[in-house]
């Protein structure tokens, strides 16, 4: 049974803490939820509960990094990328400090808590900060890689993590690379470029569409900034239609990042955007929310069908 992404992250962080004494971990009274408590239990002297004070937590991490520490700041994604934004921008990114952001409950994964606890604009926010790198793991192996990558490589980094369990997509042998995406299913009629949960929904959609004779390529764009420009161009040229799929507002996130590349390169093809349609969400069981807001396999299928009608 695969573990929740947050659980994988907390476990890996604790393991990395065994071998790297510079790692320090901060949380804002949600360590039991974000799973940073796993690190806290293993390395209590390097774990700091800052209370419900996210601004303080992130700026404290900025200061720690100037003394050579590798701070990981943790709380729900929505609070980290709103209350934590000032220091992220004016200290950490401005001065290119070595602080890592673990956004624990991305998208609508904190389903029942409702719109206030859903993060649907965090990619847009973090992507707009110079020096910030943005990674969206899509399974346990990619989460392990992203966490280790954050420790081993200098600079501000944002890991968009889910509260939820994602099925395994990769193996421990899979090689990941910043600035690269992975073709996780080959296809020739259309490419779904997705991240996080939506990679899995796209895989489901591709399987269903295969039965209708539609060949869908699925790309896991786990590195959103920097993004894999070559792969985007290749998919546009080879499949002639693109569907971007993300558990995020359709504005500013993965879909925007992909569109920027297509527009700049002058290789725009019909593109559909599967995501939260610029609206606030609500409290409900996760699967019901995903269905209602069109970010499930049916949403991807609808996106593919629409884009194929527009494909020349």
């Amino acid at each position, binding site marked *: 049974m695969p573990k929740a992404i947050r659980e994988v992250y907390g476990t890996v962080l604790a393991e990395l803490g065994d071998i790297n004494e510079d790692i*320090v971990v901060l949380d804002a009274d949600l360590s039991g939820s974000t799973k940073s408590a796993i690190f806290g239990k293993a390395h209590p*002297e*390097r774990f*700091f509960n*800052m*209370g419900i*004070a996210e*601004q*303080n*937590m992130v*700026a*404290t*991490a*900025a*200061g*720690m*990094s*100037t*003394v*050579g*520490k590798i*701070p990981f700041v943790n709380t729900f994604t929505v609070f980290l990328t709103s209350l934590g934004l*000032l*220091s992220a921008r*004016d*200290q950490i990114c*401005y*001065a290119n400090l070595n602080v890592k952001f673990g956004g624990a409950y991305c998208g609508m994964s904190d389903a029942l808590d409702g719109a206030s606890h859903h993060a649907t604009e965090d990619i847009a926010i973090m992507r707009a900060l110079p020096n910030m790198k943005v990674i969206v793991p899509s399974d346990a192996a990619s989460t392990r890689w992203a966490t280790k990558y954050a420790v081993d490589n200098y600079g501000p980094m944002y890991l968009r993590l889910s509260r939820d369990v994602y099925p395994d997509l990769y193996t421990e042998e899979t090689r990941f690379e910043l600035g690269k995406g992975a073709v996780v299913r080959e296809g020739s009629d259309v490419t779904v470029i997705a991240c996080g949960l939506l990679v899995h929904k796209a895989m489901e959609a591709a399987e269903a569409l295969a039965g209708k004779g539609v060949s869908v390529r699925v790309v896991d764009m786990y590195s959103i900034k920097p993004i894999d420009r070559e792969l985007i161009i290749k998919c546009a040229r080879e499949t002639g239609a693109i569907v971007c799929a993300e558990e995020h507002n359709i504005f500013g996130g993965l879909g925007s990042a992909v569109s920027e590349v297509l527009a700049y390169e002058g290789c725009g093809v019909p593109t559909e955007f599967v995501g939260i349609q610029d609206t606030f969400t609500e409290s409900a069981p996760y699967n019901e929310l995903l269905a209602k807001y069109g970010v499930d396999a049916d949403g991807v299928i609808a996106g593919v069908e629409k884009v194929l009608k527009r494909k020349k």
Partner: protein
Amino acid sequence: MALTAERIAELNELCRRFRIDVLTAIHAPKSGHPGGSLSVCEILTYLYQEHMNLDANKADDPDRDRLVLSKGHAAPMLYRNLAEKGFFPVEEMSTLRRMGGLAGHPNMHTPGVEMPGGPLGQGFPAAQGMAMALKLNKSPAKVYAILGDGELDEGVIWETAMSAAKFKLDNLIAIVDYNKVQLDGTTDEVMPLGDLAGKWEAFGWTVLECDGHDIEALDFCVSVADAAVGAPTVIIANTIKGKGVSFMEGKNAWHGKAIDDESFAKAMEELGGEVNA
């Protein structure tokens, strides 16, 4: 060891010269913050030129003392002190707020700056983070966070006040440049600070209070703060906004106002500086 009368006189003379240089630097681009730069003059000058363990030739020394100017708008006085310490030539003061020159608010392109400043409140928790990391490293270094009084309106200041006490950061020293004036008016008009010493005490801090323009008093308080055990110390330094230039003193209008030529000439006359300096 207490400062000698000669050393105090030297530091006071440095302050006079720094005031001249800072006003000259602010006058040139017709933009900057004279009031808060003048009020924090003795605090920064005492720390940089007399007290802190800091050497520009060993700028990466892990055990150096750190200073975070959380009230980042007083950048010109920070720059003048860093130049005096040898982090960059004093002539660079003339590049203030110019393309490729010294930024309006401190950033880490400027040698000697430990943390960018500008958005108020944020420097304080960053200083706290330094103090926490230094403690983990068992370093003897101290961290001095220089706060404005208007800046105390920011909620994050009090978040940090709470957490620094929780973590027993006796290597963190906050100094409030308490000039009682902020941009729109007095602190009492804009946002009353009430019993300021009582507030810090209630948060678990050791509180000292002194005349922030009196080098000897600053020396005493900082030395006491350095010796603290088990709790952070705040020094409430009573200062005068615009200190040293009679018509700027206590006036919120001079918080962030460009210095016109006539005012500049008058200020130079009072401070014994040259208009063409």
